């Protein structure tokens, strides 16, 4: 994105986390839109099958989190990890058989979510070397956090959230002659779709989108079943500058970081990247507006040997 930023003034911090297990309780089942009980994987741990560019829906899954789900064991340190980590930040595995594997943050979902370019096909076993398919619960990772505080001096009405400066630089668009910020998006989302996550901080978790329950009733659909993991989307009438709320005339740009949900009122979720008055933006509909185009292959500056050197 061709836009002036304060990226040179941002600090980079080395943060630690570990791959956190899926969590359940002894009652096992949760409840779907029509009261159907379900027990489905997808949240927590390492999910192998789904990556940026893949469909977000259409899986036997709930709260599908692509790749690795990461937390810190200490509650205060965990909130810092969740708040300071930005989409596009580098993640490096530092323990276990996949040590050395390097991936990128694709979003937040009460876990930091990291996708890796070098996952082998699902079901091929434990993986070897830097193959991220060898990741599992408890493996330690290092996150190179940079991006909170990123600002666009030529667009003072637009607030940037959770966005690595290198990701912003890799995105198409930028400052237009008319002064607006051009942003490419793969989908536009109506205000009716905003589900769980409304009212929460925009630096934590994400905003579930309803109306994307592939295979369920037509009366539940808002036409969002075609979303893909990593898609940039525009949320209509959403103001995420200081939290997440409905505000007519505002616009929020997010990246779809989670997928299929069976739980009602939930669904594929965008992590917030940009928010401001709609008049400050010029949206370009572009099906290629997806993290897969910008994070994989890895940019040269993300070479593991250079990444964590202070």
């Amino acid at each position: 994105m061709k836009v002036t930023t304060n990226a040179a003034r941002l600090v980079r911090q080395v943060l630690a986390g570990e791959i956190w297990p899926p969590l359940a309780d002894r009652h096992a089942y949760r409840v779907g839109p029509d009261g159907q009980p379900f027990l489905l994987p997808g949240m927590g741990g390492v999910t192998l099958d789904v990556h940026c560019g893949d469909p977000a829906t259409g899986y036997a899954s709930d709260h599908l989190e692509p790749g690795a789900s990461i937390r810190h064991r200490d509650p205060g340190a965990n909130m810092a990890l969740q708040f300071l980590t930005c989409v596009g930040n580098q993640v490096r595995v530092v323990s276990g058989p996949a040590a050395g594997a390097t991936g990128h943050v694709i979003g937040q979902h009460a876990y930091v979510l990291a996708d890796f370019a070098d996952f082998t096909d699902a079901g091929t076993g434990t993986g070897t070397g830097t193959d991220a398919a060898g990741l599992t619960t408890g493996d330690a990772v290092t996150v190179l956090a940079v991006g909170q505080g990123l600002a666009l001096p030529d667009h003072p009405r637009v607030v940037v959230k959770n966005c690595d400066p290198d990701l912003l630089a890799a995105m198409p668009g930028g400052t237009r002659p008319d002064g607006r910020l051009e942003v490419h998006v793969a989908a536009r989302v109506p205000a009716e779709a905003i589900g769980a996550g409304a009212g929460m901080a925009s630096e934590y978790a994400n905003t579930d989108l309803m109306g994307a329950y592939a295979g369920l009733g037509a009366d539940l659909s808002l036409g969002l079943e075609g979303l893909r993991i990593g898609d940039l989307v525009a949320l209509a009438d959403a103001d995420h500058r200081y939290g997440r709320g409905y505000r007519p005339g505002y616009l929020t740009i997010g990246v779809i970081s989670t997928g299929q949900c069976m739980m009602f009122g939930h669904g594929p979720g965008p992590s917030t990247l940009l928010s401001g008055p709609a008049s400050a933006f010029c949206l370009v509909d572009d099906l290629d507006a997806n993290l897969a185009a910008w994070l994989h292959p890895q940019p040269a500056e993300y070479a593991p040997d250079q990444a964590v050197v202070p």
Partner: protein
Amino acid sequence: MTPAGPGDQAGPLRLVTVNLLGAVVHPALDGSPYRIDRDGRPYVPAGDGGIVLGLELGDSVFALDADHAAPGACLVHPDPAARHALAAYACVGNEVRVRTGAAAGARGVVLGKRGEEGRVIAGFAPADLARLRPGDEVSVRARGQGWRPPGLPPEVAVMSLDPGLVPMLPIGLPAPGASAQTAAVTVSVRVTVPSKLAGNGIGRPAAAWDLDLQLPPPGPGGAGDPALRDIALGDLVAVSDLDARYNMGYRRGWVTVGIVVHGASPLPGHGPGITPLLTGPAAALQVNADAAGHVGLTATALRLQ
């Protein structure tokens, strides 16, 4: 509120009544006194939980510069699981009785509930409320979950509603044995709001959470839709295209009716909150919005004066 009667049944099953223990909760803040409002301004949240004096059923949800203020006292249980049970089983209209402290013996009524960790909102006569203190124990006579009035259309769900409260609310239940054409529930509400205004609470279990409506305070000079501006505590309000049978979520053609249980909030994604009571397809749950004439739940009807 009333002894079990012949209609006080869950289909063919009789309701059970459970005495629950709650304690009046103290407001709680984390290390910072500030929250950030929808315009990015820090504010100190007053009125979010605990005992709020001077706010009554019938007052506007915008009457006070407060955050989620409820008309009465919020009750919790110190054990997290028992606290969720208190919030899940308590029903609007359940009688409560203060057991300890200066207000011991005072009678109150459950007005609603709030989500997250779970809170029950209990209303009292103003003189009794003023004698309450955080930590006072309150017994809740919980009854209503599982209730299905005879004749209720099968696609309509009722929740968190004490059967004895129905005569005090503008809810018309179909007569048992009514034909399919006439077997609809009719409800008078202050206003119907579109589902895109549904904020915090969406995606959460309706029987144990409230749903915040993203209504900012009226602008200077009372700007904005008068019907939205005049919503009062205790009003019934409908939300279109919202299914609240289990978790709350978007479903085209449905409607959910709730009772307004707390006032506005400066937080983005928050606002006046309803405790859902009825949900169903719009054809079976017929809502009549009466912005000027609507009368919801009142302190007079509850004998809380």
